């Protein structure tokens, strides 16, 4: 909404000794987005509070200024319509969603066809154009006092005027529409014998529109149910200044005043003379709420003792009827606040706003003892920091993707990841499905960077995946995941080295992450993880924490890379269930150096043919080792010239030496036994000790 300072001053005097107009309005909650001058006039573009329909006019804004400053508030002049006969058309209100309804008939004064300068000034200030003299007059009246008015050409109306709800299949042709539209059944309409004259509170129809030829018009002022207007406005996808006001609640008691103000504008502009008036009220519903407030409670609630006189003064200026009660005030809220003032807290807000939020003191609350992060929060933060230290950047991907992305990733309905939680109403169809894995978006991230010839990247994200509910009436399952993706050279600056990251880098990273949170992360054969077929068949593993499979790691399958337009990319990916990791048993840190003597170290090398994994050797060693073997791990490996795939792998064994009860001879004997066991058990697979 845009207002002109000069016009606002017709309603309230502006004293700027304290605050400029824009600061004053801001402070009142009428946010000034822009101030600009044109000629002698200053204009303010306003952003209004969503619940304050009454602010959508000069009178409403002036009332707020009046409440704050106490400057006199000026009502606009009216022309009384008392004593006029009823409109000759019978008028019926057949829906309870119209609370008040009035039609005043006017006879247009012949002679003039151009709108007057006074009307144009108000319209232009509001950023509205001129339509014709009658519509301009109605619009100006609304801009002044907020009551929407709608004009019908009286001679185009056939029979009685009825406010009713639309029948199934009923259509109408609204203004500015090129085709008739079907109205949802139950839409409140104003109709005559030939059908719909207007969609109530939203837009008129073409067949009864006023024009420069109009000689008699009916001016409608009404109060419609805000929800009814809102539903119809959404259904028709039409938003007008009238509908915006009605949706926020119009003033049910201002119907007659607004018509009398319109009559005055007509008179001032030699436009028309009122000749008839019918005013209907449905039911005896009161639109003035009675609220009791205790001033002590007000002081407790806002934490500021305001004297009773100030409270009474600002509330009176805001239109409340104020009476002293036994221990507080008995208030009658003004009818234009029927829709947003319902209880004491609303009144407290009015008092605070009128006095200024900035005047209220700031008081430190009690109970400000600090708190600590939980263990889970600390561990998540540690994982984030750990990944950052390893060169990863934290990204946020959308929680959803398109049907095409799913098709690209999993291909067919038989795939275990085909089932998704679906979004019913996405504006953008890229948001059709809630993700059930993180790989799809990791791949899109990779493709995006590779398109820009960025070959090296490390990304991670903590996010949720969504799985369809297993049982009816239960929500989709949300799983908090941590995923990471890496590609490109092992170093930031590849001018010294050229090796790209691979499976082992991811494995090492997972090991580091596990150590960061003191959980043992191990890898195992891929069996039934839903992403198994998206990863390289020879370079993928299940991630385990304790005895639980928590995720998957591996190089992305070249087939999948091709489907995402990355023919030559080597991408290494992992994802795991974050909570499953953090719920795994702690692997407490223990220092062996704390013992009286450090462990004794021995090394042993085996030749392993292709497809025999080092872990098989470790498993055999562990199975036959004495209890004082504390650790076995690989320390070296190199490829042998033949046969293809064969390599020599060196294992380091640590023997507990704390009690000093094992001699070198004992340890060497144990080592010999271990190597013999490996050689005999794995000989069928071609494993033998390297001399």
């Amino acid at each position, binding site marked *: 909404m845009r207002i002109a300072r000069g016009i606002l001053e017709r309603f309230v005097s502006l004293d700027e000794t304290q605050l400029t107009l824009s600061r004053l309005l801001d402070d009142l909650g009428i946010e000034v987005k822009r101030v600009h001058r044109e000629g002698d006039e200053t204009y303010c573009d306003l952003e209004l509070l969503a619940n304050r329909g009454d602010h959508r006019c000069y009178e409403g804004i002036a009332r707020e200024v009046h409440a704050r400053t106490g400057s006199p508030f000026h009502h606009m002049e009216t022309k009384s319509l008392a004593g006029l006969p009823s409109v000759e058309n019978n008028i019926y209100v057949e829906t309870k969603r119209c609370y008040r309804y009035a039609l005043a008939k006017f006879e247009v004064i012949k002679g003039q066809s151009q709108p007057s300068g006074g009307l144009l000034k108000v319209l232009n200030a509001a950023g509205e154009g001129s339509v014709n003299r009658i519509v301009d007059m109605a619009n100006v009246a609304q801009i002044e006092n907020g009551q929407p008015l709608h004009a019908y050409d009286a001679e185009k109306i056939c029979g009685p005027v009825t406010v009713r709800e639309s029948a199934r299949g009923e259509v109408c042709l609204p203004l500015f529409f090129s085709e008739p539209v079907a109205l949802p059944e139950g839409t409140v309409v104003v109709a005559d014998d030939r059908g719909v004259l207007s969609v109530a509170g939203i837009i008129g129809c073409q067949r009864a529109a006023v024009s420069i030829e109009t000689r008699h018009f009916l001016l409608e002022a009404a109060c419609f149910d805000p929800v009814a207007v809102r539903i119809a406005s959404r259904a028709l996808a039409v938003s007008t200044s009238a509908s915006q006001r009605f949706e926020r609640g119009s003033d049910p008691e201002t119907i007659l005043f607004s018509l009398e103000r319109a009559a005055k504008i007509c008179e001032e502009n030699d436009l028309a003379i009122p000749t008839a008036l019918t005013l209907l009220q449905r039911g005896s519903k009161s639109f003035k709420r009675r609220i009791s407030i205790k001033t002590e409670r007000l002081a407790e609630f806002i934490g500021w003792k305001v004297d009773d006189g100030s409270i009474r003064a600002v509330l009176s200026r805001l239109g409340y009827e104020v009476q002293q009660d036994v221990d507080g005030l008995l208030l009658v809220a003004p009818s234009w606040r029927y829709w947003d003032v319902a209880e004491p807290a609303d009144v407290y807000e009015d008092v605070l706003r009128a006095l200024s939020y900035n005047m209220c003191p700031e008081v430190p609350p009690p109970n400000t003892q600090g*708190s600590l992060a939980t263990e889970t929060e600390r561990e998540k933060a540690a994982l984030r920091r750990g990944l950052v230290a390893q060169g990863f950047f934290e990204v946020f991907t959308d929680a959803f993707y398109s049907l095409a992305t799913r098709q690209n990733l999993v291909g067919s309905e038989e795939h275990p990841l085909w089932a998704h939680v679906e979004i019913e109403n996405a504006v953008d169809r890229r948001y059709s499905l809630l993700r059930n894995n993180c790989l799809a978006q990791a791949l899109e991230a990779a493709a995006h960077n590779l398109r820009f010839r960025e070959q090296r990247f490390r990304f991670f994200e903590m996010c949720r995946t969504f799985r369809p509910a297993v049982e009816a009436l239960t929500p989709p399952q*949300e799983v908090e995941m941590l995923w990471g993706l890496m590609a490109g050279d092992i170093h930031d600056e590849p001018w010294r080295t050229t090796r790209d990251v691979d499976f082992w880098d991811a494995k090492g990273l997972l090991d580091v992450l596990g150590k960061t949170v003191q959980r043992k992360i191990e890898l195992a054969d891929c069996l039934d993880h839903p992403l198994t077929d998206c990863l390289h068949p020879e370079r993928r593993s299940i991630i385990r924490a304790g005895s639980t499979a928590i995720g998957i790691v591996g190089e992305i399958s070249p087939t999948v890379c091709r489907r995402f337009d990355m023919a030559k990319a080597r991408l290494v990916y992992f994802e795991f269930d974050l909570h499953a990791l953090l719920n795994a048993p702690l692997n407490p840190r223990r220092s062996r150096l704390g013992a009286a003597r450090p462990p004794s170290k021995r090394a042993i090398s085996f030749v392993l043919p292709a497809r025999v994994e080092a872990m098989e050797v470790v498993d055999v060693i562990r199975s036959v080792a004495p209890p004082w073997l504390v650790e076995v791990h690989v320390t070296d490996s190199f490829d042998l010239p033949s046969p293809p795939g064969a390599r020599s792998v060196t294992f380091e064994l640590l023997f507990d030496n704390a009690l000093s009860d094992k001699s070198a001879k004992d340890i060497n004997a144990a080592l010999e036994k271990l190597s013999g066991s490996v050689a005999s058990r794995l000989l069928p697979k071609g494993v033998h000790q390297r001399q």
Partner: protein
Amino acid sequence: MNEMEKLKELLAEFEERAAALETSDELAIVEREFLGKNSVIRHVLKSLKELNPTERASIAALANSTREKFETTIRERRAVIADRESQLLLTGEWIDRTMPGTWQRPGCLNPVTIVEDRCIEILRTLGFRLEEGPEVETEYFCFDALNIPKHHPARDMQDTFFVKGGYVLRTHTTSVQARVLATRPEPPLKIISRGRVFRNEDVDNTHLAMFHQLEGFWLDKNATFAQMKWVLRFMAEGLFGAGVEVRFKPKFYPYTEPSLGMDVRCTKCAGQGCEACGKAGWLTVIGAGMIHPTVLRGFGYDPETVSGFAFGWGTTRLASQFFGLSELRAMYQQDIRFFRSLMDQ
């Protein structure tokens, strides 16, 4: 040639050879030749006992002085050659120091997380603790429990993604507040929630379908508007520095009454008006308010005895202000160039 002449000749030869020494390898050869087990001087010294006493003394003296001369000369030459060779070695190890360093560089957290962590750190000092809630939420916790009935204009402010099965993607983290209050905890209660929220709208430079919010609420026997203002200023000073200028203005949120917005004086232009603050000189950073009595009653609290305040902000927008980003989208596009540029700052 007698022994005396032989030694003199040997000394002369040594001096000539020693003067020509260039490398430590050559030095080793000369050392071995003139001082080694099979050297002439060793041979002379070994054969002294075969000489008559008169000759022995004079030849022994000459042999010893010659050997000392050899040793001294070789020691001196060794030092010179070692220096020279060191110098050569170092010169040969010249590097271009202007090439980029190669140590593993850290990545970085998303700006949104950095800002969120900072906010949480500040709020923890007041005793707030973090709670989480689902992103797929019921309409009850997302709207109805928060005084936003169907067809309320506020639902327009938050165009919603509807999920099959009668759920929505949460439009604000206030749903976590509702979930916590539904467990009917006894006050005092100080809760923060952070996370992703969703709006069903077209994406452009300043609008996203998914972004981040952070929210806190404080429920107590006598929480007041004045206390809320104090907490908000504390928050602003924690984020923007002590002495930051703030102002409060009325706002509307359906779940709070009274509601307010807190502006801070634009730190970029010091209030003069710039692109970052839309020429206003002020930036609205936090929305807040006293928890609406309808919300409290809905969860079984009596608003006459229990009150509270809630506050929240878009951490996405706050992060864009902190990092001087003109496009919110950059934080949600996985473009390595953007993230590297953050590290360059």
